[in-house]
């Protein structure tokens, strides 16, 4: 275990990958080992006194908007920023700034077959073969939202291994992007150039969480429409509560290979993933500060944002863990409660939500009855 931890800290790809596998495992025995490894990593990390924290960027987008293209080009740009490094990864000690990149991608598992197609390396071959990039896809395994159940742990492993920039790519913009928002420094939402009109109330919840909306594929014939979409998102953002900490922005981005000047359709600046980088960096720094103060204001806790994201991870994990372990628990009274609730849903007596609520209340009541 100690040896694995040491190799992770030296950022040996094989070791980092194996540590991540351990974090992902469902096997009960692995759980304890994963905990031990994480503990070991933290201790080693503390003793090494590494100064920098990783910059964590979340990129969300529904399939087809070109998320992987933006992630890939952004990462390649970050890697190219420092020309001193053109060979092999020399380990964390030789890093400067953000110049080693870890990409964590989450792909959906099929709810029917449980298998998954993890196509990320195929979609970003240039990045996947870059010596200073580490690309790891995970299957969502039916966890909520875009995040695989253990993504928080994976991010932590990557951070402890000393990757300067961690990009988290998620698909299926939806229910629980809140979790991503908490765990990363800056969250980008990629939307399609023609999605302005379908901007519905449901998406507005998501807009509260993201720091930057990027209207992608704003090239050629699409620029006019993209510009329209941008305005739709801006006005939607303007209606968000004052409570929100930093100024959110909506930018246009082109997916074309060549830097494209705006061809007269719009006055908006059209960014490429490369020119987006300074904007993201700036947003991340302000957002990181703002998030911390925001947390303090609202929670009045001593938490740094780092810890708050761990707490968020805990709540997510708790939900996943309950889902996994309750059905197979040996307590007969527990099974009675669950089976009863299931039956109510099946027969249509109760809605899924009411049944869940009722079941939780019954379980909690049972807990109360346990003598202290």
């Amino acid at each position: 275990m100690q040896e694995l931890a040491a190799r992770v800290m030296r950022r040996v790809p094989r070791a980092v990958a194996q540590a991540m596998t351990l974090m992902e495992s469902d096997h009960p025995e692995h759980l304890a080992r994963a905990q031990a490894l994480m503990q070991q990593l933290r201790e080693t990390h503390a003793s090494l006194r590494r100064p920098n924290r990783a910059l964590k960027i979340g990129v969300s987008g529904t399939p087809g908007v070109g998320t992987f293209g933006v992630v890939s080009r952004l990462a390649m740009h970050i890697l190219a920023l420092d020309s001193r490094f053109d060979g092999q990864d020399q380990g964390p000690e030789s890093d400067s700034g953000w110049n080693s990149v870890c990409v964590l991608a989450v792909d959906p598992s099929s709810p029917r077959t449980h298998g998954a197609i993890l196509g990320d390396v195929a979609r970003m071959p240039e990045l996947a073969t870059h010596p200073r990039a580490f690309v790891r896809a995970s299957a969502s395994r039916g966890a909520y939202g875009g995040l695989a159940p253990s993504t928080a742990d994976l991010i932590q492993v990557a951070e402890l291994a000393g990757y300067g920039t961690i990009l988290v790519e998620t698909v299926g913009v939806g229910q629980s992007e809140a979790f991503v928002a908490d765990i990363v420094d800056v969250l980008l939402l990629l939307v399609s150039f023609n999605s302005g009109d379908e901007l519905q109330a449901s998406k507005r919840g998501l807009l509260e969480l993201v720091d930057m909306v990027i209207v992608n594929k704003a090239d050629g014939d699409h620029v006019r429409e993209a510009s329209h979409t941008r305005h739709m998102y801006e006005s939607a953002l303007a209606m968000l509560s004052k409570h929100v900490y930093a100024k959110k922005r909506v930018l246009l981005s082109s997916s074309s290979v060549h830097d494209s000047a705006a061809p007269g359709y719009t006055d908006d600046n059209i960014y490429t993933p490369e020119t987006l980088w300074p904007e993201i960096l700036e947003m991340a720094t302000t957002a990181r500060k703002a998030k911390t103060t925001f947390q303090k204001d609202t929670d009045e806790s001593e938490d740094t944002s780092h810890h708050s994201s761990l707490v968020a991870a805990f709540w997510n994990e708790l939900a996943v863990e309950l889902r996994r372990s309750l059905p197979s628990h040996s307590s007969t009274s527990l099974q009675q409660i669950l089976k009863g609730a299931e039956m109510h849903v099946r027969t249509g007596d109760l809605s899924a939500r009411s049944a869940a609520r009722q079941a939780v209340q019954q379980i909690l009541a049972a807990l109360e009855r346990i003598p202290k």
Partner: protein
Amino acid sequence: MASRLRCAARSCSCARPWLFSRGALVSSSLSGWRRCAFESSRKNTQSRELSSAFESAEAQWRFQVEKELAQTGAPSSRSTSVDGICLRPAYGDAASAESGQWPGVPPYRRGPHASMYASRPWTIRQYAGFGTAEESNAFFKRALQGGQKGLSVAFDLATHRGYDSDHPRVQGDVGMAGVAVDVVDDMKRLFDGIKLDEVSVSMTMNGAVLPVLAFFIVAAEESGVARSKLSGTVQNDILKEFMVRNTFIYPPEPSLRITGDIMAFCTREMPKFNTISISGYHMQEAGADPCLELAFTLADGLEYIRVARSAGLTVDQCAPRLSFFFGIGMDFYVEIAKLRAARELWYTLLKEKYGSEINNPKSYVLRTHCQTSGYSLTEKEPYNNAVRTTIEAMAAVFGGTQSLHTNALDEAIALPSEFAARLARNTQLILQEETGICAVADPFGGSYMMEALTSELMLKARSVIDQVERAGGMAKCVADGWPKQRIEDAAARKQARIDSGQHVIVGVNKFIAEQQSAQSSGNGGQGGDERIDVRSLDSVGIRQTQLDQLKRVKFSRNAEAAQRALQLIVQAAKFRNGVDSVKEGESDAASKNLLDCCVVAARARCTLGEISSALESVYGRYQPQVSVATGVYRDNFTGEEPGASSEFREAVRAVQTFSELAGRRPRILIAKVGQDGHDRGAKVVASGFADLGFDVDVGPLFQTPAEVVKMAVEADVHVIGVSSLAAGHRTLVPAVMEELERAEAQDILVIVGGVVPSSDHEFLRKLGVPLVFGPNTRLPYAVVELIRVLSERLRLST
């Protein structure tokens, strides 16, 4: 009149009596299909089509038959084995006024020529060329002696992708699936002693078509043959590369511009050379059904006409030089109908779109090459493949192909051996010389079934073509990727139907030979006496020869001239990239034609890699988007065969058990190593494995062993599945194993799937590859085997 006919039948050598038999040939049974097939097109085509010189389609046909037979000196009728019964070049309804009734007459459903094979049989054209230029040269000479009329050159993958043999990315690919060509001198050695003004040469080249064609022109020039005398075809069909075969270099848009430049150059300078061979073959090989193949191929054809027009050519200049290329699978009737439908559909499309500007009737005629399906060949009981190929060849002939390649029976296992290649050629010679099939054009014409099937296919394909055209043409659609997606879905469906036994393949999923079903797992076709000798190549030696030569050429050439020539290419590419030069004066446009520039570079001994990277510096190198269908495989696995569905369930169960014991799903990286772009197999396996419960990492195309290992390590997969279809396994798999060792990841298992001769299984096993799956492996079986081996390795037990 009737007595005259009888007399003619008795003595076939007498002069064309059947030409006077008008009316006597009427068969009352023919009216049914006619109505079904032609009712709609009748009124608008008939009157305009028949030139006023002919009173009927039959008269026009008779006139042309006379002409064609006179040209070749062929007899007007052929005797049969029955004394006194002769066959005429075609049969039809002479009284009918309908135009489609006769071959060689619009709309050409029944054939592009009036007498078809009676005056000249189809061209036997075997695709060949392996290893070095010298070896291929010897192979060509033998083939020409053996009765072959045209040469067909296969290039190696490095050449296809625009890399010189010394490029680090192509280590395992040099000389593997064809001949390696780096400089013009390779081309000269390839055709040494062959008279290029007498033999037609067909070159399968799409991506690096500019340097290869330039080398061909300069090689001929330096052996004293002017470019105007060269005849043959270059495939030059880049659209289908983006759909299925993936041997492109540049993005779609500049690639099509190159196509246009080549068409313009050849029209100007090489009148006997066909500039493009529009290929459906590769689509069918990739899993497209015949209708999809037909539709996408013709839609490609329409796009190329537009490309030619924007390069300044008229339809009459380009259309007669288009040739098509279809695959012929085992669906006998459908394949015949496909070729018939293709001709009529092409005629109709051109009539509608360009009718007003076409003056040359040849512009309407679709001429095609065909190849029997490689996909239909099996690794198990390989001798069955000779039978399959024969049946497919017959379908191509009944459909009216102009030239044909018959596959060698060992192509499912390896590159063809000398013996298998001869047998394949003889298959065609037997059809031509022994069967009498050549005597009659379109023998299926007039069959109720065949005419109805042809019309149905036309209708179905037409709706797909219309969909493509509405979406802005094939170039746009290819860039969007939906044709690729449709073909891949079709491939996954087909695999599921095979695995579930709905689609029978004898020896694979039904009537499996005893010793093979009993044989131990994983070693595919090693079925005792079924073993056949296959050809293997010394890839290291071939590469060394090429490297030495590259060094020599680069040392001895005029470096300055070479640099200048490359600069010229860059400038021309930039110019063509920005402004359309077509409207300028002839000479100006000519000086900027990319092929012109490449010819200059070829003379200056610039290498293929240098020319390609000069173009790449302007256009960029295209990296395809990989997407894999999920659920398609499972949805089609309805498992009517009870044995098949239990195998499916067993596989799902095995994966589930493994997942519980290991703490995660089994994870596999499906890797395409080297420059082989055929990814149907890899994708079908990826899709199927995911549907059976695996987490499947799909690797990009064209990876080096080190890159594959990096991805496998970071994803921490249990297994790397290396897909090998171009004989690269002998070099690339050992390289992958070495890289794994370097990454301290020897515990990651490597398995191989694809075309691997059984003689190489032992070689791979010694390397530490426990499982090798051939082309016809049922996926659930592969999964069960893999899980068994994995569980042993990881010491997992219940």
